[in-house]
């Protein structure tokens, strides 16, 4: 199996930080706020490996640090400590030791990100096709006809009517906006895709369509994905392996089936039991 991503001891602290930050926070203290300095430990010692074609789920309640971990990996935020290595075409990229320009280049050319809120991932002032074009233009495709063809293909792939590609995303329904966002993220065939609560807030039939789409993409292109969600259904459907996070710590990790059928940690047990 080809490893795509190797994350080790990723930590993110908001605030000044002190030596006791990590000692006095976490699930056993039921807080992620350091009592000494008031810093928020959003994530601590998050480690995982991700392989080609694999979907890794990160599950947890809001504020557990799951989005923070993904945002650090997509360079939206800077981690406090930790390392992450991205394996690509026989090369290794040490994500947190690159300069900002290299990071942006890598994010533009090799990563895809789909946010919960389409406003974060799409530019609402330009057409749906323009949004996809932007992504293609970033990776140095400068043939208009080629861009049109590719954008049309992507939009039909994500079941947005190609006739509507020249409309502004604000005219679209939430589900359609999300599909345009996925099309944009897929534009450059990224080997690594981050999905941050992509189905949250959508109605059930639309959720199902988007989850189907994600699975098909994984099958077709062997894209490695990190899926962040608090929805056990999404985890069950998509993820092969899962991390469970609470107060910034990974409290349980393993095969999704195993975690859902036989949860070991008390929190996970409660989480699974409470699912309808």
């Amino acid at each position, binding site marked *: 199996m080809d490893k795509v991503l190797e994350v080790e001891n990723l930590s993110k602290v908001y605030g000044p930080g002190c030596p006791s930050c990590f000692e006095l926070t976490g699930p056993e203290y039921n807080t992620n706020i350091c009592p000494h300095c008031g810093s928020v430990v959003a994530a601590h010692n998050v480690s995982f490996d991700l392989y080609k074609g694999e979907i890794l789920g990160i599950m947890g309640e809001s504020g557990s640090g799951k989005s923070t971990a993904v945002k650090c990996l997509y360079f939206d935020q800077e981690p406090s400590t930790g390392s992450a290595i991205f394996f690509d075409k026989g090369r290794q990229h040490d994500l947190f030791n690159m300069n900002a320009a290299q990071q*942006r280049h890598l994010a533009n050319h090799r990563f895809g990100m789909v946010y919960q809120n389409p406003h974060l991932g799409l530019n609402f002032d*330009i057409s749906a096709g*323009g949004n996809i*074009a*932007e992504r293609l*233009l970033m990776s140095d495709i*400068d043939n*208009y006809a080629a*861009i049109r063809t590719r954008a049309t293909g992507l939009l039909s792939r994500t079941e947005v009517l190609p006739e509507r590609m*020249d409309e502004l995303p604000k005219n679209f329904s939430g589900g359609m906006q999300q599909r345009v966002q996925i099309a944009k993220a897929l534009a450059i065939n990224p080997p690594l895709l981050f999905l941050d609560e992509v189905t949250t807030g959508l109605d059930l039939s639309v959720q199902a369509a988007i989850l189907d789409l994600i699975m098909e993409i994984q099958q077709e292109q062997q894209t490695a994905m990190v899926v962040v969600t608090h929805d056990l259904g999404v985890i069950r459907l998509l993820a092969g392996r899962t991390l469970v996070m609470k107060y910034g710590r990974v409290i349980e990790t393993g095969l999704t089936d195993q975690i859902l059928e036989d949860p070991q940690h008390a929190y996970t047990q409660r989480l699974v039991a409470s699912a309808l």
Partner: protein
Amino acid sequence: MSAAYPFGFLDEYAKKEVRRTALKAVAIPGYQVPYSSREMPMGRGFGTGGLQLTLALLGKGETLKVIDQGSDDSVNAVNLRSFIEMTCDDINTTTSTEEADVIQSRHRIPEKALREDQLIVLQVPYPDPLVVVEASEDKRKMLHGEADYSRLLVKLYEDIVKFDEITISHRYPTRINDHYVIDPSPIPRWDVPKLHQSKALILLGAGREKKIYAVPPYTKAEPLAFEDVPFRVEDFTDEHGVRRACQRCGCTSSFLDEFVDSKTGNKIYQCSDTDWCDEQGSSNVAGGRTPGAMDEQGGSNVAGGTTPGMEEVEQRREQLPRTPGEMNEQTVLSVGINKVEVVNGQGA
């Protein structure tokens, strides 16, 4: 009058700073170098950026030409020229492109090809082409640094989607030396190819925005475009497919301004570059501007120098009756592709 000011109005330190900035701009083609744009005795936005460059670079015995929209006798050119004459002893002014050492211009690059020993200074209102797609200057600097102009290209893409072609008529974003994209000042598309491998040094000064940048001689300048939708300049062919000619000189190879004759209601086309027009020989046309009618003493009698025909011309869109004096403001209808637009009096 001139004794009250140092040569070139600015003090030596100020001129030195401008020269150093210009040197840096030449060293990094297309990069916008910040400088401490001085207060000038005229409002920012009236060409103070270009003026400071001209004042810092002009030397005794040199010859200056000032252009506004291709014309030497429109108000911005006249005022800047008389100011420079007032503050720089022993310089000569001319309306001839051929004779000029330094040319300060607004909205046009002369039709006549410039030489290696000439220098053109362009007045710039908005130096950063990215300002339309990114509001934060911090982020714009990053985008420039990484030569990431994808968002500008998206604008071109959207233009083609909506109008089947790129509709930027002036200030066409142009990539210099394979890296920085510049706003080449509000020159029409027609003039953009003149930046490419230009023999003369092209300096651009933005007074209000406090930036100087340059297209050094023999430097690559490529307007942004798609591989399969290439850049093209204004098309002056009429409905019969014939290239329109200047009604004064008959030239069929220059950038034309469009006027409407208020008596006949007909459209009139005339060279935008007056020096070029004069040189082509205005004898072709009756009632044309006589060569040399321009008042070279600073334009105190400018109205008398303009074409008699122009006084009859009316602004097509605004339909304002104009007095001869107002004509100096040179509000001109420039004809772009698919886009006729009014370029207004005061610019950079």
